[in-house]
């Protein structure tokens, strides 16, 4: 009897997951049915409040993809470096200090990160960095008189680094890396620590240095775990709402350059849901965006689970 009730409670998570999928798709159904699936996903204009409203999600999707790519470029090296540092290079005392710090960074409220980005980073970008690189630097470069530098580079800096508003993809990427680093580094660190000590011993006994051992033996052995860390980090970046809501600029258009304002999918939902009347097409469209998000993160979870299971079997051959 007890067993039955325990077992049925165990199924709660499965039920919940299925329910989430069900309700999302149920509410999203309207928009896809009315406007056609591919037209909605690939449509290039997101003007939900215009008359007639347009619900092309592509600018939102492009916003998510671009900010995720930019963040990944910065956050993945930093996250993996942090993992290597903690797992291989840090002294015992440093580790005791650093690991809790990274855990605290992981639970840091994202709304405060967004707030910080909005109130500190954005003004720095528009009032300090922009004049510096878009005005002062081109002046200096122009005066050098050198061929490539005083013409092309000057114009490049002048045009491209004029940041009218600090609320853009770049700032969002900066604050998103703060979110992503602990996710990537904790999983990667587990993977690195799991590499058997005997591999390192063998490498050192052959006369390899510390970095050589890390680069040639430890990291290759932990590659599957590191991949999982990266994939889950990307999943966290894609799904992050508050930071992009407060800092990415809110313009639902295709970005052309890293200092453009964008509106990634989560921020579109969060920003517009308050104004979308219940049951309206806008309401359903936002659920559609949510459904797409759900599917993307679901697929990423499946991929990372597959990788972690597939490469575990390699270890079985070990007789250690």
């Amino acid at each position: 009897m007890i067993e039955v009730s325990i077992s049925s409670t165990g199924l709660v998570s499965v039920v919940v997951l299925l329910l989430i999928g069900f309700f999302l798709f149920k509410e999203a159904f309207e928009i896809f049915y009315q406007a056609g699936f591919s037209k909605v996903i690939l449509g290039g204009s997101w003007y939900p409040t215009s008359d007639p409203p347009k619900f092309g999600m592509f600018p939102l999707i492009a916003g998510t993809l671009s900010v995720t790519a930019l963040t990944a470029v910065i956050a993945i090296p930093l996250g993996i470096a942090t993992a290597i540092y903690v797992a291989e290079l840090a002294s015992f005392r440093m580790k005791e200090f650093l690991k809790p710090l990274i855990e605290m960074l992981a639970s840091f409220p994202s709304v405060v990160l967004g707030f910080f980005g909005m109130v500190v980073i954005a003004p720095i970008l528009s009032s300090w960095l922009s004049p510096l690189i878009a005005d002062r630097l081109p002046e200096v470069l122009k005066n050098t008189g050198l061929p490539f530098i005083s013409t092309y580079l000057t114009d490049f800096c002048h045009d491209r680094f004029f940041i009218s508003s600090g609320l853009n993809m770049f700032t969002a990427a900066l604050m998103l890396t703060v979110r992503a680093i602990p996710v990537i580094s904790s999983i990667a660190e587990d993977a690195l620590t799991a590499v058997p000590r005997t591999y390192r011993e063998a490498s050192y006994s052959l006369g390899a240095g510390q970095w050589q051992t890390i680069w040639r033996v430890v990291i290759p052995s932990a590659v599957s775990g590191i991949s999982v860390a990266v994939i889950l980090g990307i999943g966290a970046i894609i799904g992050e709402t508050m930071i992009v809501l407060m800092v990415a600029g809110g313009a639902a258009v295709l970005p052309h350059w890293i200092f453009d304002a964008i509106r990634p999918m989560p921020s579109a939902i969060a920003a517009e849901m308050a104004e979308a009347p219940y049951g309206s097409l806008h309401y359903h469209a936002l659920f559609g965006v949510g459904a797409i998000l759900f599917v993307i993160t679901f697929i990423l979870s499946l991929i990372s689970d597959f990788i972690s299971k597939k490469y575990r079997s390699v270890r079985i051959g070990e007789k250690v």
Partner: protein
Amino acid sequence: MVDGSQNNHVIKIKDFSIFYGDLKAVKSATLDVESNKITAMIGPSGCGKTTLLRSLNRMNDLILSCRTEGQALFHGVDINAGDTDIIELRRRIGMVFQKPNPFPSSVYENVAYGPRVRGTKKKSELDGIVHDALVRAALWDEVKDKLHESGLSISGGQMQRLCIARSLAQQPEVLLFDEPTSALDPISTAKIEELILTLKKTVTIVIVTHNMQQAARISDYTAFMYLGEMIEFGNTDTLFVHPTHKLTEDYITGRFG
């Protein structure tokens, strides 16, 4: 590999002690390792023989609280001096571990690891080194068709010979063996003992073994250690037939293990 000098002792240890924190694991050991000979270290568990062995190529550096006192010289150079190049030391003094620990890559890559780390890049050179090392380790014929298969896909005895080949690829002067056959079956054990006897011609060998019959079979010199102290050291035949200390005699005759 006598380099022509008069001194035949490659490694000389004098009043050498090793501490783990406050615990004295090896107490004032004195030992000379003659080149191109097999020196064995025997004794019951916990006597410090593995600790002493690992100090010769400074593998104990991987343990935080370890420190040493006394003299351990390799070609007259203090092994534990602060300015000794550990990398170069470890290339010249190789080590084979108790449990075979090949890297999770191919047989070829396992053996080529050492030379690669040392800077050798040309494929033709690496091919040659891998071939020679595997031949010297008596493994070439068994793996020559499997060079690019995983190093973990071969038998236990073969894996240990792969590890020996891996060390040999660095062209060491000395090879340290830490109970190399304790995890292997009798047939593989016999093959490895035979291999060690052959390697003696070109490499100086120091072997720690739990199995004193093994020491009696293959070594030229034997050291008996007990609770961190080096009780007796000398010619193997002499030690086993006419041991000087009662403790040695008790151990050899099996009064304690």
